[in-house]
């Protein structure tokens, strides 16, 4: 039976929603493993926040007194800016991501498949490069968009009207970067839910918009909130965009202040650790808020009965809506990618398009400038794919515990699994280094440290996706499997996995793409024997060769888009066939 969205679910009964193994010890063991994986590196960050200095023995509360005492006004300003940036970026990602997901999954808009890939475009760029691309488009003096807009709007002067070096500019770029987190989560949920309720609503005379707001959106609330939560928490810790767009305009957020604290000498790693703990606290608070918002309500919309996709036919509006949507995609996604392509093929960056500067030299010289180019791409590809797969498998197991057992242990598992997401990579990497350079588990200097770092860092993304997907699954499905004599593993592989495949493949793609660009942990923990993309990025950045950097980004983006696109397309077809059957 389908329970409608928003009804109170009965508390989980023993045996009603079986776990992989019914023993009570399993969740406790999982929690213990998670604590080691996540809380142990975090311990070293807390320890770092109490150290006198990186070279001095002894502990002090002095850094806390500085952050929350003498520098309180500055801390509050940083925190307010961080909240504004992450909140604004999340709001934009919610609006655009949900809108695009609805267009793709619920309408017959022309070119939907390609539209999905185009909206993933900005996400393939590293945040720093994304910021740099937007400076070409919308910096006040030389931005190409400003050069077009000034005569169009009859404006005199040599600057504006757009200024990417501002808080609205940062929110714009961050929002675009975060959009796939919401979009993929919502699109997967829309593809998974049973359309019977939407059809019933329309047959009862409700208009399409009313059905959308009273039936569709409430049903996918976990996916929307899950995507928004991830976007918000990631937005708080992001560094590249505020570094490129915020610092020139003197707008600082916690992540840029943390970078500043760690960059100079004496390195204020301890101060950076205290600031990072503020981000950690904010992410714990955000997870709590989300849990409260979803409460004990059931969002079960995938039942034992088969279903097919519901689609709204746009009729006469099909082409106007399609053209409008593609125009928006052009501004939001195609332009920054075009700016990147121009930078990759130009001998230097210019304010206006100069065909005489086009050259293939940036690509041709890449192997000479960076001898590790091919090994780095190969290693990153392997490590990202393996880590993403491990995260997805672990996340499904964790998600089942979190949702099927509503006790203290499951709540702790959910909270602990989400902790790393709010921390800036450069600080969490310090914790990981301290954790795995000493007993009991010395992984320092081996490729395994990168693998474990990647899995730890991206477990929250997987857990968000798995809980959002599993929340929609009717426990009766597994109950039926159990009564038919299927074992726990078979039930997961044959019943659960096919139904949550869209959500988990979307998560896989997100993690894979993000790891292909991961910088902080890769640089600090990597070894010369295993060069990864971060090594290449750092090398090209220090050389100040933006043309070669852009060429590398183009290659990496094509690789990421190819792999992620293949996986999503393959998964989508398999899922459609499974649903139809």
């Amino acid at each position, binding site marked *: 039976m389908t329970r409608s969205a928003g009804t109170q679910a009965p508390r989980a009964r023993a045996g009603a929603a079986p776990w992989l193994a019914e023993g009570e010890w399993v969740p406790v063991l999982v929690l213990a493993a998670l604590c080691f994986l996540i809380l142990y590196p975090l311990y070293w960050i807390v320890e770092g926040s109490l150290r006198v200095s990186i070279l001095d023995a002894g502990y002090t509360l002095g850094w806390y007194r500085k952050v929350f005492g003498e520098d309180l006004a500055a801390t509050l300003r940083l925190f307010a800016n961080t909240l504004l940036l992450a909140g604004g970026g999340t709001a934009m990602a919610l609006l655009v991501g949900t809108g695009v997901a609805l267009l793709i999954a619920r309408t017959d808009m022309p070119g939907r498949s390609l539209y999905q890939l185009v909206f993933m475009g900005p996400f393939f760029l590293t945040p720093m490069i994304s910021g740099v691309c937007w400076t070409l488009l919308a910096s006040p003096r*030389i931005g190409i968009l400003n050069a077009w807009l000034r005569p169009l709007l009859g404006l005199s002067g040599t600057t504006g009207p757009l200024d990417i070096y501002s808080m609205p500019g940062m929110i714009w770029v961050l929002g675009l970067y975060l959009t796939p987190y919401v979009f993929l989560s919502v699109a997967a949920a829309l593809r998974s839910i049973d359309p019977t309720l939407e059809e019933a609503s329309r047959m009862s005379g409700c208009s399409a918009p009313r059905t959308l707001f009273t039936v569709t959106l409430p049903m996918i609330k976990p996916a929307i909130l899950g995507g928004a939560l991830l976007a918000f928490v990631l937005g708080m810790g992001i560094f590249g965009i505020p570094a490129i767009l915020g*610092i020139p305009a003197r707008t600082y957020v916690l992540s840029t202040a943390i970078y500043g604290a760690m960059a100079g000498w004496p390195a204020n790693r301890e101060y950076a650790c205290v600031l990072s703990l503020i981000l950690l606290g904010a992410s714990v608070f955000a997870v709590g808020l989300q849990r409260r918002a979803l409460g004990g309500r059931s969002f079960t919309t995938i039942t034992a009965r088969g279903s097919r996709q519901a689609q709204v036919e746009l009729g006469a509006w099909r082409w106007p809506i399609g053209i409008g949507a593609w125009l928006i995609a052009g501004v939001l996604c195609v332009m920054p990618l075009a700016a990147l392509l121009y930078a990759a093929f130009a001998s230097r960056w*210019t304010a206006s398009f100069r065909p005489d500067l086009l050259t293939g030299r940036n690509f041709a010289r890449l192997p000479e400038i960076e001898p590790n180019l091919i090994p780095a791409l190969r290693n990153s590809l392997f490590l990202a794919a393996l880590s993403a797969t491990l995260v997805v498998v672990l996340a499904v197991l964790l998600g089942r515990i979190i949702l099927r057992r509503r006790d203290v242990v499951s709540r702790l598992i959910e909270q602990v699994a989400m902790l790393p997401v709010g921390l800036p990579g450069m600080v969490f990497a310090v914790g990981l280094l301290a954790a795995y350079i000493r007993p009991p588990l010395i992984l320092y*200097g081996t490729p395994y440290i990168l693998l474990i770092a990647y899995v730890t860092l991206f477990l929250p993304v997987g857990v968000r996706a798995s809980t959002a997907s599993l929340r929609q699954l009717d426990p009766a499905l597994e109950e039926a499997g159990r009564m038919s004599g299927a074992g726990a593993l078979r039930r997961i592989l044959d019943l659960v996995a096919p139904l949550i495949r869209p959500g988990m493949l979307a998560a896989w793609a997100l993690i894979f793409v993000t790891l292909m660009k991961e910088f902080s942990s890769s640089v*600090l923990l990597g070894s010369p024997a295993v060069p990864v993309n971060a090594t290449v990025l750092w*090398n090209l950045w220090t050389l*100040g060769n*933006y043309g070669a950097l852009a060429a590398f980004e183009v290659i990496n983006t094509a690789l990421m888009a190819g792999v992620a696109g293949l996986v999503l397309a393959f998964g989508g077809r398999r899922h459609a066939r499974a649903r139809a059957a």
Partner: protein
Amino acid sequence: MTSRRAVLGLMAGAAGAAVLPAPLRAQELQAAARREGRVVVYGSWPAAVMNRLGTAFRAKHGVAVEFTNMPTSQTVQRFVAELEANQPNVDVVQISDLAPYVDFARRNLLLAHRSAEYAAYPERFRDSDGRWVVLAMNAENMIYNTEQVPRERAPKDWADVLRPEFQGRIAAPDIRGGGTGYLFYYAMREIFGVDFHRRLGALRPQLHVGTAGQGQAVLSGEAAAAVGLLHYTGLDLLKQDARAPIGIAWPEPIPLAVRAAGISARAPRPNAAKLFMDFVASDEGQRVGVVGAGSISPRAGLATPGVPDLAARRTFTIGHDQMDRYLQQQAELTREFTQLYL
């Protein structure tokens, strides 16, 4: 408490290890280095430079160089973490800042190496016990966009960028972005007084972390000029495209940022490390890894293409004897910077 014990233990152990029994002769050193097989180097020097150095070093001595390229802050984190955890792996540490070496040397975290090659370096650029040595320098200069700044208005002196026409059009380093930014702030304040920063701050410059961003801002035309960026930025832009609208000025005194290196007191391969340091400090190593990469050698008689003869120019450097004052003022000057520029 583990880390506390580890740090204290390290210092006690290192104090003994840092004293060399007697210098090995060149051939003995080479043989010992070959037995160790490789030298592990962490540093912020560009990988292309290190690859060139590594190839030349291996060809000459038959010892491989394993280089991990990372930012200065990560290099320091990793070096200290290895020592604390008693898992030393690095032999040679190279970073773009002198200040950490002075601290490291005081705490006996670096090995004393009385290299004959170091004698060719000015005293202010090396530790008296050979625990560290400045192996390369980069001048902080000024670039401007030749399409935006008429030739007759091109800045030549530091004070020229304080003209009102540069309001909002200067790319300046953020003092909090690392050693380069702080050196520029400190040098200008020492030379011209705080008024220089008061006036530059009033022009609302674009702030940048990292010298590459300043160069791109001028190249694209978003900024008309940039100050306090490392000299190779402008030269590299012209090397990448000779038609780039970049003009370079060398106002005096020229602040010199340094790249130093030292051997870890707990280096697992101390002989390979010493041989490598000797090579990089030698005339041959300097030609391959410093002058060839566009940086400036502290050794006399090695000219870098595109860089004026610094012996004939006034320069500004922070010697290790001035380092305490330089560092002690950092917190106060950072506060001052935020008041004047933000």
